[in-house]
Each structure stands twice: as structure tokens, then as C-alpha cells.
């Protein structure tokens, strides 16, 4: 039972990876390329929240507020909402300026290489603006308390529980979007068969724009989570890139539910690997999962056969 304390870590990491992987799988299947910039969108989301909260504190003199046992209040949540919009817009801007003009080449590889450049510019732009040292939303330290009666080894802080709850809520919301709205159906159509979708009258530009807006918004939440529970630094998202790709491919490219499942699996695997191989090799676990998926079942757990 020594692995129980890592359960919460695993779920938390899994939630963060899931949020990023959903955006990644959407851009991968709808826009047709492996986007190496996605990690940096996550980082920008975290920094947007930081700047907004710092600005708020500077303007009003009050802090992040307090909502019960959480380390933050309404100002933080408002900043999070605004950051979701801003990060989505950043993704859409990136698409408009870089990826859309390159799409006419028709070659996925050009887009991937372009995403290298965008990734460098975004990541080191943050390192220049904020410096490489870590930042925090709040200096508070929270205590973890047992959350499952009877299993005192499973402990979580209030912030961590909030993160898990919000992630679950967002996933449900996304499910409803994809199944109950016209946009959601259009996105799924383009993801499965772009040509046919266009024949039916789906506007690929609009779908592309919304893919970035939604993917960026979810990335911002993921970034804010890491910032809240760990720290904010320019490499926050890029360090998640390998687990993100692993989760996306493991779940099946194009499947949102697969991305969530993949994220949870990778998160749990990384956390549970800590007592086994040590914390240093966590990233290698994601890589092994990725390689395993690619070699044994390339369509992933929930993906459709290509």
C-alpha cells in the first residue's frame, strides 16, 4: 500500500495532462498536424493568470481572495476565465499568422517544423518577459488532509481537490459541446472526414478557429493548475510535451475521451513510477508508454482504425 500517497499525485498530473491532451488531439485531428507549440500555450495560460492576478493586486490592493479552504477566491477565478479567452485567442492568432498560410503546402511536416519555431519564440519570449526564475500565484502553503475515510494515506490539499473537480466539470462540458451542439458535431465531422464535412457545408475556417479557441482555453486551465499546485516557469508546458503526446497517441488521435483516458493513464503511470524507478526517470515512463502505443496499437485505446 506504499503507492497510495501517489494516487492523488497521479490523478492531479493526469488531470493536467488530460486538459492539454484534449486540445492537442483536437488540433492533431482537425488541423492535421502534430503541434509542438501546445505545451507553450499551456505555459502562456499560466502566465496570463499570473499577470492578471498581479495586475489586480496592484490595482486594488487586495489579494487573490479566499473561498473557504482554497488558497484563492473570485479574483483568481476571474483571472482564470480571462486567461482562457486570451490563450484561446493566442492560439487562433498563431493559426492565422503561421499555420493557415502554410496549410496550402498540403504537407503536414511543414506545419510541424513551423510549430518548432513558434514554440521557441513563445517559450523564450516568456523567459525574456518574466525571467527564468519560478513564480507563484500565492505564497500560501496548504496542508494535505485525508480525503477517503478509512484510507488515511490518500491525502490531498483543498486546491488539488478543486483542480480535480474543475477538470471533471470541464470534461463534462466538453462532452456536451461535442455531442449536443452544431459546432461540436461540425468539429467531429471535420476530425473524421474533412472532405465529406465540407461537402455537407461545414465551414473549415470556423471549425479551425474554434478548435484553437477551445484547445487554448483548456490549455490555460492546465497551466493554471500546474502554477497553482507546483510553480510557474517558462518550461512548464514544454516539459509536459512528451506526456501530452503520449496521452494523445495512447488514447487515439482524434478521440477526446481517449485523450482524457490517456492523460489519466500517463499521469498515474508517472506518479506510480516514482517509488519504483525514482522521480528522475518520470519522463521516461511517458516515453515508454508512447513507444508502446505506437508499436503495438497505433490507433490508440479509443481511436478509430485509420
Amino acid at each position, binding site marked *: 500500500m506504499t503507492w497510495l500517497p501517489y494516487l492523488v499525485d497521479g490523478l492531479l498530473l493526469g488531470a493536467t495532462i488530460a486538459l492539454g491532451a484534449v486540445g492537442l488531439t483536437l488540433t492533431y485531428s482537425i488541423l492535421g498536424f502534430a503541434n509542438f507549440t501546445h505545451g507553450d500555450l499551456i505555459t502562456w495560460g499560466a502566465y496570463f493568470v499570473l499577470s492578471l492576478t498581479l495586475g489586480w493586486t496592484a490595482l486594488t490592493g487586495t489579494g487573490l481572495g479566499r473561498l473557504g479552504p482554497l488558497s484563492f477566491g473570485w479574483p483568481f477565478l476571474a483571472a482564470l476565465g480571462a486567461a482562457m479567452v486570451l490563450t484561446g485567442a493566442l492560439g487562433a492568432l498563431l493559426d492565422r499568422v503561421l499555420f493557415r498560410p502554410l496549410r496550402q503546402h498540403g504537407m503536414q511536416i511543414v506545419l510541424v517544423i*513551423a510549430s518548432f519555431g513558434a514554440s521557441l519564440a513563445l517559450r523564450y519570449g516568456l523567459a525574456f518577459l518574466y525571467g527564468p526564475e519560478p513564480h507563484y500565484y500565492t505564497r500560501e502553503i496548504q496542508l494535505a488532509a485525508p480525503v477517503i475515510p478509512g484510507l488515511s494515506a490518500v491525502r490531498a490539499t483543498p486546491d488539488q481537490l478543486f483542480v480535480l473537480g474543475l477538470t471533471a466539470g470541464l470534461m463534462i462540458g466538453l462532452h456536451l459541446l461535442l455531442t449536443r451542439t452544431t459546432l461540436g458535431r461540425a468539429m467531429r465531422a471535420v476530425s473524421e472526414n474533412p472532405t465529406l464535412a465540407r461537402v455537407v457545408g461545414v465551414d473549415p475556417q470556423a471549425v479551425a478557429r474554434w478548435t484553437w479557441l477551445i484547445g487554448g482555453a483548456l490549455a490555460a486551465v492546465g497551466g493554471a493548475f500546474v502554477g497553482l499546485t507546483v510553480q510557474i516557469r517558462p518550461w512548464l508546458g514544454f516539459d509536459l510535451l512528451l506526456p501530452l503526446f503520449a496521452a494523445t497517441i495512447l488514447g487515439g488521435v482524434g478521440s477526446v475521451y481517449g485523450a482524457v483516458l490517456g492523460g489519466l493513464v500517463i499521469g498515474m503511470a508517472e506518479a506510480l513510477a516514482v517509488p519504483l524507478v525514482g522521480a528522475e526517470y518520470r519522463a521516461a515512463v511517458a516515453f515508454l508508454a508512447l513507444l508502446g502505443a*505506437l508499436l503495438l496499437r497505433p490507433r490508440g485505446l479509443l481511436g478509430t482504425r485509420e
Partner: protein
Amino acid sequence: MSATADLGAYLVFFLVVALYYALLCLGLNLQWGVTGLFNVGVAGFVCVGAYASALLTGPSSPDHWGGLGWPVAVGWAGAAGLAGLAALLVGAVTLRLRHDYLAISTFGIAVTIQLVALNFVRLTNGPFGIAQIPRPFAAWAGTPVARNALYLGLVGLVVAGTYGALERLVRSPWGRVLRALREDEAAAAALGKSPARYRLEAFVLGAMVMGLAGAVYAHFVGYVAPEDFLPILTFQVWTMLVVGGSGSNRGALVGGVLVWGLWSASGAMVAQLLPQAMQARGAALQVVLIGLVLAVVLLRRPRGLFGEEAVVSRHVEA
């Protein structure tokens, strides 16, 4: 030291590093430009080569394996060989994957290699790196500048030799098969060429060049550490190859030197323009510039400076 002597010393340093990058670009060009293998794990093979040479030729230490003190030439051969072996293992498993999956896999491999270099302390001395890597010509040359100048001559020969060999290879029947496979695999296979074998050969050969470059770096600086082989190195080399023109060895050379020049110039400018307090952050701006250059080149001139030349055979002037 006079100003011109300073400038000369800097020029020598600049050229050695430029040639190191040029060598990396030549390796990547063989893999990507000629054969179409999307290798995003360049840094991993450089790391293997650099550490191999360092451990084979360096002084022994109780903290880690190696330090065999063998001659530098053996170290360099070992670097190329070990990097090639790593590529053989990696390639056998991953080259069958399609482009984007190969990119993600090789990216992951490089991250894992760097992780091993960082944490497998018994082998690599972990974050402390390997120091006191022997520098050739140290015994002959009087001053560091003279030693570097001699080293520049050596590296120049190595790059010239590699360039010549790769140019011949590209124009040879073997090279033509590679390009045929890149363009239309089914047609090439129909002619009886085994795609997997040719691709693996190109991948391994390219990685050997990268490993050699790693050794060149290690013996120039005299010290290697895991943070010298982060993904940023891979993206720098990709930018260089795209700028120079992938598919062309000349483009690889020029791209490497040019983008390294751009990097150095922007570093000097940043040092001049930024106030003292912001100097540490200024280095980040150099990378932003590299990212922007890559994006702009892809938007405006995707084939880079020297694009791809249609080559039939070295016996025919195309």
C-alpha cells in the same frame, strides 16, 4: 593583447563552433533532406557521441565509469560508432513509423538520453558532467589561441572530408535510391530496393556524423554536461538546415554557419542594447529570434537558400 589579436581569437572560436553546427546540419541533411526521415532527436545522438569520446579519452575518476585515457582519434571513432549504434537500435524500432510519429518518438528518445546522462551518475557523472577532456594540440601549442587555431584546422579538415564524402554518396546509386524512397516508396520498392534497409543505413550514417560532431564539441570545450544537449540544440539545427536549404549539403554548411553567425550577432546586440539588470534575460531574445527566423523562412522561402538541386549522377553534369 591588441584588439586585432582579440578579434582573431574570437574569429577562431566562432569558426570552430560554426563548423560544429555545420557538421550537425550535414548529418541531419542526410537523414531528412536526402532520405526524408523526420529526426527531432538530434541532440540525443550528439550527446551520445560527446559523452562517448569524453569517457574514452578523459582521465579516470572514482565517481564514474570510463576515463580510459585513450587517444583522441580513438575517442572520435568511438563517438561516431556509438552514436551509430544508438541510431541502429532506435531506427530498427521507429523508422517504420510515419513522419509525425517518428518525429515525436525521436523527440522522446533525445529527452530520454538526456535524462540518462543527467541521472545515471555511475556512468556519466550526472549533472556535474565530464571535465578535463583532453584537447588535441595542447602539448604543441604555446597559447590557447594557437591551440584553438590548430584545432580549427583539424575541424576544417573533418568537415571538408565529411562534406566531400556526403556529396559523393548523394550522387551515387545509393543516394539515388534514398531520394527515390523519399519521393515514392512504392515505386522504389517495386524496383527491388528494400526501403527499410536503405533508410536505416542513412539514419545510422547521419547519426554517426552527429556523434562525431559531439566529439568535436567535447574536445574543443574540454567539458560536457547534460544541459549541453537539451532539445533547444535540435531546434537550432533544424532552423539552420531549413535556412540553408534541406536536401543540399552546401545548404547544410551555409545554414549552419549563417544561423550561428546570426545567433552570435544578436547576442552581441542584446548585450549592447539591454541594461545591465536585463542581461541574463537577453539570451532568451536570441532564441526568440531563431524561432522567428524559422517561421519566416518557412513562410517566405521554404526551400531555404540552396533548396534542393536535381542531381542525376556524378557522371552527368545536371
